[in-house]
């Protein structure tokens, strides 16, 4: 059990491209446990990615089942993902996101509505699952961290976007 401090931007590690995990050793199990512990400790959080703890390996955890919004939707509960990869995307939705690593700022982000993600789970089993709604958003957000993207890089509109459309 180890709750770690979540890095806050401008920590440069949040903008790094993370490396794939090749040896699934004890340190990977430890990392997954730290991610889960930190996510639970953070109360409001539904996911944490390894670089947010300063570990530049491709691992993230997501669990929307405890959140007010997530538990109303179909979800997979706790997902512990090593080398996760989104292999299919469908539809788009605009959501307002916030991030523990960028406190006090939220922005409207366009995300895919439905995704198929593949990863190795904590038992080193290869998983391929389809996720929708909040869970899909959370996974896209966490996986962005593994490539050094923050939601700030994805903000698609200011609040007044509605009025910006060019009129005929």
């Amino acid at each position, binding site marked *: 059990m180890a709750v770690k401090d979540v890095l806050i931007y401008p920590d440069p590690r949040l903008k790094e491209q993370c490396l794939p995990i090749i040896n699934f050793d004890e340190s990977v199990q430890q990392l997954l446990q730290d991610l889960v512990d930190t996510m639970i400790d953070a109360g409001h959080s539904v996911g944490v990615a390894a670089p947010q703890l300063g570990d530049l390996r491709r691992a993230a955890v997501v669990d929307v089942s405890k959140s007010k919004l997530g538990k109303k939707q179909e979800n997979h509960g706790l997902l512990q993902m090593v080398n996760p990869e989104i292999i299919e995307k469908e539809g788009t939705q605009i*959501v307002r*996101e*916030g991030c523990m690593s960028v406190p006090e700022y939220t922005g409207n982000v366009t995300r895919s509505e439905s995704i198929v993600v593949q990863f190795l789970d904590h038992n080193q089993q290869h998983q391929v699952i389809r996720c929708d709604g909040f869970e899909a958003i959370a996974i896209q*957000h966490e996986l962005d961290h593994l490539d050094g993207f923050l939601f700030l890089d994805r903000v698609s509109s200011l*609040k*007044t976007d*509605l*009025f910006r459309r060019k009129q005929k």
Partner: protein
Amino acid sequence: MQHFALTIIGRDRPGIVSQVTEILFKAGFNIADSSCSILGGQFSMILIISNPNISTTEDFIDTFKPLEENNLSVFIRTLKPGGEIRSELEGELCMISVYGADKPGIVFQVAKELGDRHINITDLNTKLVGDKLKPVYVMMLEAILPLDTEIEEIEIWMQELKQKLQVDISVRSLVVMEL
């Protein structure tokens, strides 16, 4: 540090932000929060600024003269201590859309329903759209509901207002996904 609210408005054209911020930068001001947008044909800027060496407007009253000479109107408000800090707003965020045939009083009557119930409007945009013969008024607002107010209650109040104003109103919870 003393903070000021600076408002600048003028006919929209390229280069306004550049001219304003060059003056601020060269005079040693920091821009904390700001919001700038086109309203009608006017570009409007609202900025919270500070400068460690400046404590009263007299110290920099002439700084913005070049803007006035370029047909921009400048207004400076001196903030009271702490006036630059946003107070912690607790409660559910909700979004209200109001739209319909243009008529006087749409904004006021919606705002009054909310204000009377101590509901804090945090963002508000309105725009007149549609053709000249059939203008449509669109208003979008975000508000924070006090802890004892449920979104369903707002829906009920807005339902009544919808009848009264003969406009369409929808209310929805605005979920910020904290990730």
